[in-house]
């Protein structure tokens, strides 16, 4: 499990970018999707998730806007930029390469 969480931590930003590829979303929804995809084995800590948003936003890979919920607290939605899509594709390719490499080594 330790190796797994180490590897996952290194890919937090790519994981978030992938969630934003299909639609704009907000923090909790992204984390829920991640949990569902991993059968509740993996969940990002809020601190990790929101720090990653800040980094992605300042790097210009995502932008954010406030939703207009009729009831309850406002949500901040994130949207992937074209640069974000490019970086995601690159990271994904890098990961495929790394996978092949590690498979031949381990």
């Amino acid at each position, binding site marked *: 499990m330790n190796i797994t969480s180490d590897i996952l931590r290194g890919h937090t930003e790519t994981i978030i970018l992938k969630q934003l590829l299909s639609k704009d979303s*907000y*923090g*909790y929804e992204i*984390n*829920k999707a991640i949990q569902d995809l991993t059968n509740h084995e993996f*969940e990002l*800590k*809020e*601190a*990790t998730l*929101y*720090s990653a948003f*800040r980094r992605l*936003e*300042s790097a*210009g890979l995502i932008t954010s806007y406030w939703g207009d919920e009729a009831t*309850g*607290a*406002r*949500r*901040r939605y994130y949207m992937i930029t074209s640069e974000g899509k490019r970086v995601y594709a690159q990271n994904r390719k890098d990961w495929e390469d790394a996978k092949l490499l590690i498979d031949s080594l381990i």
Partner: protein
Amino acid sequence: MIQKIRTTITRAFDDVPKTKKSAELQEELISNLIEKFNDQLKMGKTEDEAYTTVIAGLGDLSELTESLKEHHVLSAPSAKDRQRNALVIAISVGLYILSPMALIVTSEVFDQDVLGLVMMFLFIAVATGLLIYNQASKPKYIKDDETLVEEFKEWKAAKDKDKALFAALSSAFWLIVVAIYLFVNFMYGWWPFSWIIFIIAAAIQNIARAIFALTRHERD
């Protein structure tokens, strides 16, 4: 219980500068945590269990708050700075207005033409120096976060400052040109061809502008 979540988050942000950015981050966090809390209740957990799950999922919030502490610098000029700014500009403008007076008084009353001219240029030089010093010593705009908007503001502030500096220099330059024009005409009667000075002056100004733009381009 929701109030307890709210308090936990606000407390974690206690020693973070109270910027818009930090307020928005708190709002975002709280709204997402409340939704998570309500989902936990729907799944049949008690309020206490739900609260514990939410807090346990937070992780190390200092990771988040530390990033907000950097880059925070007040950028608005203080009242004192503005006063000093206004005083310097007033003195400079006064000197510009007085500079031809120095020439007239010294040359007419004391009959010292060269001294009058020296006096006039001295006044202009001091006034221009003051204006340039004033512009150059203004604090530049400092980004208070890393967004595109802040970058744009910083770029614009730098651009405006450059523009003001250029305007100050060129107004002094034209005053000097007019002074030289009047001086050579009245002193030596070069009326027929002294107009050429304006064409030369315009050329010099454009060259200066080009050099100015080039150096800025390189800096960017």
